């Protein structure tokens, strides 16, 4: 007895559909009832939202393809201008029924043209008495296109006077979309996150042909036990499952354990999965490197991740420039006297500072400083005399291109440019250590 009931479609199709979309039955059945029969007019627009990999795209694609409904599927990230988007829709529409796979190129600049061409195309394709579905994936990109795109798509049915439904797929809620003018509220549908049980069911669904379903389900159980707390992304979990499965099978292949010896298998795989969580999941090392390690049966310890190479070698004065920039960013300008003059006297921290300066500057983040202050600090922290040569100035610019400093505000060089230092405390301490400069002594926060 199928869950879905619909007079329009044969029972076999519906059964097949059900098997294709596990854990999304309720959403699919409500979509089916919204769509109605082929010739029925449906909602002008439907808005579907839910987290990453909650099956929005997959469900829509399967639904439309299994029921053989005329549809167009467009990814808005890929079509980054409105022109590309509209042309892509028309091209796909052309190839809906005709034999040639790649429809000829249709120039289409504005939404107005689109509406006209769309109407024409419906007639030539003989689709008047069916609902045509346009699915816009990653619809949040629409907000960055021209202002008329989103309202236009919302009212496409009204403007073309054709039987068309536009479906938006997005990861964010409708409230963040709602345009100011010409908005027609779509029907919104929420795809909730998969629960752990759902994930278990979906992941075990496609088990490798060599092994039994139970064996693979046990493996998925262990995998979820490790990864569920950090990652609920179905795609990522499936990827990780595929990466580590050979390791899980190892005892079975070697004949040390049989498929039911769950405890032994668990012992074998658990530490391995934990290591995977720290390395390959964070993309510290690539998945192909991970597979190579598995094959060689080596320890992943010798392979350093990306973050291990944090050290940056800089020229001597660049180091001091960076240190000076850091000091300028994190010390209040009024304390410069205290740090860089010889006879500064004692300044009590409590009386000296205004109220807002009492909070740690490191919690507040770097503050902008003018070029002159940077140079003044540089001259006082470098032991020997520094001439303000062209090289020093170009070093500041190259620090900006390396993203270690950032230029704040307008880039009018005559008007005293301002910079911010963007490196972390650990980084600057490592730099300072190489030039024997005790930076902690010069930081107001650590006084």
């Amino acid at each position, binding site marked *: 007895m199928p869950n879905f009931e619909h007079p329009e479609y044969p029972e076999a199709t519906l059964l097949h559909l059900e098997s294709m979309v596990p854990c999304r039955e309720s959403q699919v059945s409500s979509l089916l009832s919204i769509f109605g029969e082929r010739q029925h007019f449906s909602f002008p627009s439907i808005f579907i939202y839910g987290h990453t990999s909650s099956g929005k795209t997959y469900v829509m694609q399967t639904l439309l393809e299994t029921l053989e409904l005329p549809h167009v599927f467009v990814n808005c*990230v890929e079509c980054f201008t409105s022109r590309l988007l509209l042309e892509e829709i028309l091209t796909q529409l052309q190839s809906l029924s005709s034999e040639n796979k790649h429809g000829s190129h249709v120039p289409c600049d504005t939404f107005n043209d689109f509406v006209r061409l769309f109407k024409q195309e419906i007639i030539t394709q003989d689709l008047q008495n069916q609902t045509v579905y346009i699915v816009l994936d990653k619809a949040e990109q629409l907000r960055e296109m021209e202002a008329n795109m989103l309202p236009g798509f919302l009212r496409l049915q009204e403007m073309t006077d054709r039987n068309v439904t536009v479906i938006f797929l997005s990861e964010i809620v409708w409230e963040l979309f709602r345009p100011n003018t010409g908005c027609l509220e779509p029907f919104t549908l929420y795809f909730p996150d998969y629960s752990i049980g759902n994930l278990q069911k979906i992941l075990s669904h496609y088990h490798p042909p060599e092994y039994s379903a139970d064996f693979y389900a046990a493996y998925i159980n262990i995998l979820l036990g490790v990864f569920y707390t950090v990652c609920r992304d179905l795609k*990522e979990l*499936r990827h990780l499952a595929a990466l580590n499965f050979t390791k899980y099978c190892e005892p079975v292949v070697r004949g040390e354990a049989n498929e039911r010896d769950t405890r032994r298998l668990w012992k074998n795989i658990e530490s391995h999965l934990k290591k995977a969580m720290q390395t390959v999941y964070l*993309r510290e090392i690539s998945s192909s490197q991970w597979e190579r390690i598995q094959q060689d049966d080596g320890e992943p310890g010798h392979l350093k991740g990306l*973050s291990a*190479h944090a050290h940056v070698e800089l020229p001597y004065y660049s180091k001091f420039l960076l240190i000076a920039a850091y000091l300028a960013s994190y010390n209040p300008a009024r304390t410069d006297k205290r740090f860089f003059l010889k006879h500064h006297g004692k300044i009590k921290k409590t009386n000296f500072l205004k109220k807002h300066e009492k909070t740690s500057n490191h919690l507040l983040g770097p503050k902008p400083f003018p070029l002159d202050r940077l140079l*003044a600090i540089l001259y006082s922290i470098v032991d020997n005399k520094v*001439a303000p040569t*062209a090289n020093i100035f170009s070093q500041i610019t190259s620090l900006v291109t390396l*993203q270690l400093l950032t230029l704040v505000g307008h880039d009018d060089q005559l008007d005293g440019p301002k910079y911010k230092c963007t490196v972390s405390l650990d980084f600057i301490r490592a730099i300072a250590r190489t030039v024997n400069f005790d930076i902690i002594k010069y930081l107001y926060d650590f006084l």
Partner: protein
Amino acid sequence: MSTSSVSKGCFVFKPSSKKRRISSSTADYFSEGKNDSEDSGLRFATCQLLWKQINSETEKIQEELNKQLFDNLISFLRQSYSEFQTKKTEWMCRMKSSEIPTAALVLGVNVTDHDVTFKSLSEVLQDNVTPYVVSLQAKECPGIKHLLQKLMGQLMDCCVDVDSFEEEECVNISQKKIRCSMASLSKWYESVTKKTGSETPSKKITSSSRHWQSPPIVVIFKDMESFTTKVLQDFIVISSQHIHEFPLVLIFGIATSPMIIHRLLPHSVSSLLCIELFQSLSCKEHLATVIDKLLLTTQFPFKLSEKVLQVLINIFLYHDFSVQNFIKGFQLSVVEHFYSQPLSVLCCQLLEAKKRVNSLSHNQCENIRSLPSFRRYVESQVSEKQIALLTEDSFLKEVTQTLLEDLHIYHENYFTVLRCLHVFTTSLPKYPLGKQIRELHCACLGKSVWETEEYGSTVQLLRMLAKDELVAILQKCVEIFISSSGKQFSNTVEKLEEFLARFQNLEIAETNEVQDVSVLSQKELQKKTDLYHLQKTLLELKESKRSKKLTKFEMLRFEVVDFIDSLVRSYLAPAEMQTLNEVVYFNTANTLREHLNAAPRIALHTALNNPYCYLKNQTLKSDVGCISNTAPDICIVYKLHLECGRLINLVDWLEAFSTVVTAVEGTDPDSVATDQVDEIIHARFIRAVSELELLGFIKPSKQKTDHVARLTWGGC
């Protein structure tokens, strides 16, 4: 241009061939203002030839250094490519998300060097792997649209040079450039690969021998740090959807650290990549190799003096870490040397130089005589020879030839002994003479190294070396001497080998001796039972150890160190002491510093503060403190503004300006009485102030009316 025609009209003038003109003009610079007796033409030719040799040598060095890195990259490409071709099992391939293979190439902060590396990288890839190599720069790609445009443009171009048959097709595609989406790119790839597949067999063979079948598209992001997050993210997301249609490989050029990838890309995007790390050779090692191959060799006659080398190395270490700039600086010193030193005509290979000596003009002979090192040499000769040297050109030429030969031999010995000494100094704690050979080289070039304090401590430390260390070092030295070209070191090698043999003999003798001593002392200790005697014997033992006469090993060690010391003293004499060193050594470090490490602020300050420095007008010569009224207006305004605070009152400033300017015109009672500033002076003042504003010294301020804000501080 004029014509002989009387009528008005358009006339066509064919341009005279430009190429000849340019080459002659550079040569002309050399002879400018000097008569040809100083061989300017020959000097120019020598300079060109020498630089050509040096340049090809540097290119060779670079190629060798990059080879390892490029090989690794190519094997990475091959691997990821093979994965694209043969997915393992069907199940695995369906379950695994397909990641874009990505090479993170960490190149170091010397951004100026990267261009050369990327250029040779794409050449290597184009030669061996794939014709489809695209390199992108951040400033060309402010948006995803521009990025794709650039990408497709470069791809279509390289498709053209693969075979000319497709040219028409390509033009068609590139005409509708506006429609550049990933979809059309994958369509293009399909059509291109299909075509090469169905081509004539002969063509197929040639293409497949060079490139792999269905070659990957390699996209190089030259400066990863400067790309905006959005562009990168979009590009990666889009291309990950098409990864099944064509093999794409990304190369990220990273200047700082690979952490930048995580900073630029969120996890959802970086999870689409399969990132592997590649690290290039550090620039310091690169420099060490360049110095070793260019400077510490007798291959090139041209040499740098200590100060010049120090300037170049300082710019490298303190400012830019750029090997390219170092080589450019080296080139500048070559040109400068041949340009400014007339005798540089002799700065070529020894045989050639000897020939050239014979054809020197009288003027050049006088030049030789005026060289300080030659004068020193003359003074050390007997009086008849002195006269002959100073009067007879032919005799001078003869002597010059032998002196040049001496100089050549000096260099040969110098580098060998330098390397030998370097082996010794690198084994010492704290490296008193520097860790790198370039530091040692600088120390030896400048002054007599054996007179320095550091050398003293080095020798002292050498006298404390352990035996196995010493033996290892001596063996290395023997290798260096044997591989050197100089034949005069056969004696030295013999001597060193003798030392080694003696060390070996010592080994046996010493073990026996040590045993004896220990056994003896043990016995004595056992005998003494009461405390007083025990103490006494222990003290005696200690004393005897301190004043014990040297063991055989220690004696030998002293001998070895003395021998090395004698080598240093005889061969590592500073270059300045050598006669005729001016011919091959470039030593005007100041010129080089001015050119390479310019100080624009100081120059501007000098120009405004002391205009005489540039204008050379006698009336401008003045004391430091006072303001001369003959100076240009801007100088007066500048000097007055130096005395002001952060905000400058324009009225006061004008007042002061007019006082200074009218001081010459004497005491004109009328103007003083009316207290009115002359209109012309007012206009001059306004103009000078706006010039200062243009130079960035002041800017208008909104804080106070009629005030301008000062932008610079300090003496310069």
